[in-house]
């Protein structure tokens, strides 16, 4: 029996909130019921009741959605999957079944301890499997192993047929293959309610990784140095980073706004055999930044970086099991705005100049101390072209993935942060490399591969061609799947596939 939480329940005020403190934006957008479903059977019953009553269901697994996709559901029912979080192996330690409500942290721990395998990504322990995997899912070992959706072999999903009847489907390449393919990259809340994912195989957990941090205080930063950091990073992944022996290297530029005091370039590394016996590749990467005089210590108050020296560079050896500590779900404390870009080439001079301009800009009444551009390395196994046909993730030529992020707590700063971010992003993609029809966006072409749906950004719907940014040539296919499996558009949100 599902547990139904209504506004008269003391838990309602907390459970209705999204992780992003901006949602729901307004009381009128609040749900009227939160259904904590304890089993697949429960979930099917609740969904049927909601649909038959003419309510709109929205779904939450880990609740990490950047936008208001599940939280904005006026008087509807929020189906919460977080109580269904089992991670199990179906037979002979193969065919793993992970329920939608499991968090990444729990999944990593169990997969490692029980079966010595791992998921290719993401990086945040409290992210939910439910929304994450269907949107792609990538992280520190994705250059080595591909995206999580690439490894998927089955999805248990509840769909609502034309007559409004809820049906449980176990889809795979052989059964409802079109729906299965669509679930590999389209993102959550589109076709049905995912109860669990199945993976016939998963990659082995690395034995250990090397982690290294290089800190660049803003006090010592010049525009020229800034440009050299971005150029070195982008240049590496556009060239040497394509070689398979480097795929175990995952680099990140944490380009914090000047107000935070420093920028960081970090790397996690293991060789393709999952060990760090040899660190030549990591050394090579770190050497690129040597001339820029990074320090290994973060300024006071900015997190820890206790590094040890192995060979010429500062790095820390960490057993795999310690890279993921389960985290709790924090709701509503921080407000955030995000944008994303998939890049096929290294940064242009224009882009770097614009990044510098905005990351050093101040605006009255806006605190940028928690604002950053995160540049993640991409490519490697994620760019295997054979996955184009099997999934709907079309970004298979990128070398970097950018995530623009800004965080704040005071609602009075909403407008300041969101408009700054809007202008920042628009200007970066208004250079001469972007054709006139797509100014302001990383439209798929020679330089860019659009945006990433797991890092959703509702504002992009201002461009009529936004589906091409997120789904490239696959949008027509996704619309066909939508019309077939959700003809009444029961599952919808601001960026869901239009029927």
């Amino acid at each position: 029996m599902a547990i139904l939480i209504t506004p008269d329940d003391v838990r309602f005020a907390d459970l209705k909130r999204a992780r992003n403190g901006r949602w729901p934006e307004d009381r009128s957008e609040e749900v009227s019921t939160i259904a904590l479903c304890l089993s697949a059977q429960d979930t099917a019953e609740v969904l049927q009741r909601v649909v038959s009553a003419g309510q709109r269901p929205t779904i939450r697994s880990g609740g990490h959605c950047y936008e208001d996709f599940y939280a904005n559901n006026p008087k509807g029912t929020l189906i919460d999957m977080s109580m269904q979080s089992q991670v199990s192996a179906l037979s002979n330690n193969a065919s793993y079944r992970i329920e939608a409500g499991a968090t990444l942290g729990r999944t990593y721990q169990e997969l490692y301890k029980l079966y010595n395998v791992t998921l290719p990504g993401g990086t945040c322990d409290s992210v939910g499997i439910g929304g994450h995997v269907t949107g792609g899912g990538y992280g520190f070992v994705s250059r080595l192993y591909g995206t999580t959706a690439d490894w998927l072999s089955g999805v248990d999903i509840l769909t609502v047929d034309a007559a409004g009847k809820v049906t449980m489907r176990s889809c795979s390449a052989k059964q409802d293959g079109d729906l299965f393919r669509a679930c590999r990259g389209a993102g959550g809340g589109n076709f049905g309610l995912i109860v669990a994912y199945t993976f016939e195989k998963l990659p082995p957990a690395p034995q250990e990784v090397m982690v290294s941090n290089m800190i660049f205080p803003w006090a010592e930063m010049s525009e020229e140095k800034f440009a050299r950091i971005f150029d070195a990073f982008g240049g590496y992944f556009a060239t040497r980073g394509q070689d398979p022996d480097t795929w175990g290297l995952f680099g990140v530029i944490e380009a914090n706004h000047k107000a935070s005091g420093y920028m960081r370039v970090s790397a996690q590394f293991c060789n393709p055999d999952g060990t760090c016996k040899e660190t030549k590749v990591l050394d090579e990467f770190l050497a690129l930044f040597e001339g820029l005089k990074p320090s290994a210590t973060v300024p006071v108050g900015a997190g820890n970086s206790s590094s040890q020296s192995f060979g010429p560079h500062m790095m820390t050896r960490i057993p795999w099991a310690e890279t993921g500590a389960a985290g709790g779900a924090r709701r509503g404390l921080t407000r955030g705005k995000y944008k994303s870009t998939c890049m096929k080439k290294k940064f242009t001079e224009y882009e770097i100049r614009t990044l510098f301009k905005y990351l050093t800009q101040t605006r009255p009444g806006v605190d940028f101390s928690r604002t950053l551009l995160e540049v993640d390395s991409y490519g490697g196994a994620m760019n295997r072209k054979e996955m184009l046909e099997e999934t709907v993730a079309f970004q298979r030529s990128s070398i970097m993935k950018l995530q623009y992020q800004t965080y704040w707590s005071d609602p009075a700063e909403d407008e300041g942060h969101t408009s700054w971010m809007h202008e920042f992003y628009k200007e970066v993609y208004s250079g001469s490399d972007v054709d006139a029809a797509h100014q302001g966006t990383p439209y798929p072409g020679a330089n860019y591969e659009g945006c990433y749906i797991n890092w959703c950004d509702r504002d992009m719907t201002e461009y009529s061609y936004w589906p091409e940014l997120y789904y490239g040539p696959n949008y027509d296919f996704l619309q066909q799947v939508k019309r077939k499996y959700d003809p009444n558009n029961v599952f919808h949100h601001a960026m869901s596939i239009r029927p």
Partner: protein
Amino acid sequence: MKRVTDCHRRRFLQTFAGATLLPSLRVPLCGQTFLSALHWPTRFAYLGAHDGIHVYSIAGDETFIKLQMMTSAYPVAMAISNWNLYVVNGISEFAGLPRGTAESYGIDAWSGKLTFRNRVPLSLSAISPRGLAVSPDGSAIVVAVHGGGAYNVLPIREDGSLGRVTGILKETGSGPHRLQVSAHPSALVFDSVGRVLGVDQGSDRLNVFTLRNHEIAAICRHKVISGSGPMSIVLHPKEKRFFVAQALNASISSFKYDPSVGSIVDHEQTVAAPVGDGIASLAIHPSGKALYSSHGRGIYAWRIAGNVLVHSSSHVENVQPGALYVTKNAKSLFALTDDSVLRMRIDAFTEMPSAPVKVASLCKPLSVAIV
């Protein structure tokens, strides 16, 4: 002095409410509310067209004089209540999101001119709305969302403007016809108690809904002939029955209605209607003794004898109306065609329409309301 007269006129006009919404060719719609002033010298007509809302003063039901044009996005349905004009914009996207919108305008009681009040988005995925009705107490509008398969309730604020959507009812369902892949609420009317009768062209269903605290809930569902596509509805003035025009099998049905509990008691009769091209509209004479129908080509008159519909020999050929509209004074039947508004005089004795006369030229009129 003017204030007193103004109020008097308002009260007088508030006592009238009716409906008819007019679709353009190939854009099936439904009908809703109109007002009519029996003895007032000047009346005003509001015609929604592709380019906006055209305001006319009308005299003797025959002379339409253009007063004003307001830009409005695809005003597919309109209704008047308390000197406010409510409009539904049959669009599929607003501010980047998939949804239609509704608008409120103030009507100047003496000049008939409109003043824009506000525009509010419908609920997410409420695309291509098509029907609109104002509650009898004037506190809310209900919108039938054809594309998005839903109903939306929007409260009317004291100043006549519209509030944000307070009630959403998401429909499911389908039918065998290729145009019936999902639910398509297309028309609705209020009974005098404040319940909503709605027809769903996609799921072949008739529904009765209640409104409570500006939320909407279904209290009665009635399945009609599979593949028939109910598109338009009129309630008999005595409210003991209602008529539905089915677009996909070109037919008209009557149903017994129990207004005391809001239930559809029985299907009484289904008659085949001449021709059909996917559009169906109805209008009923205020006496409750005659019904006018069109299924896209020609206008046909029916006598309502007890619970039986009898096809009259009277019909108007060579017109292709999208929708029909009878004035409360029972003197005129209006039809919106692809490029004009036609008026047919209704014979006071036989209640049958005369030959049509063009009273206004307008490109693709969509909806009408008269006060």
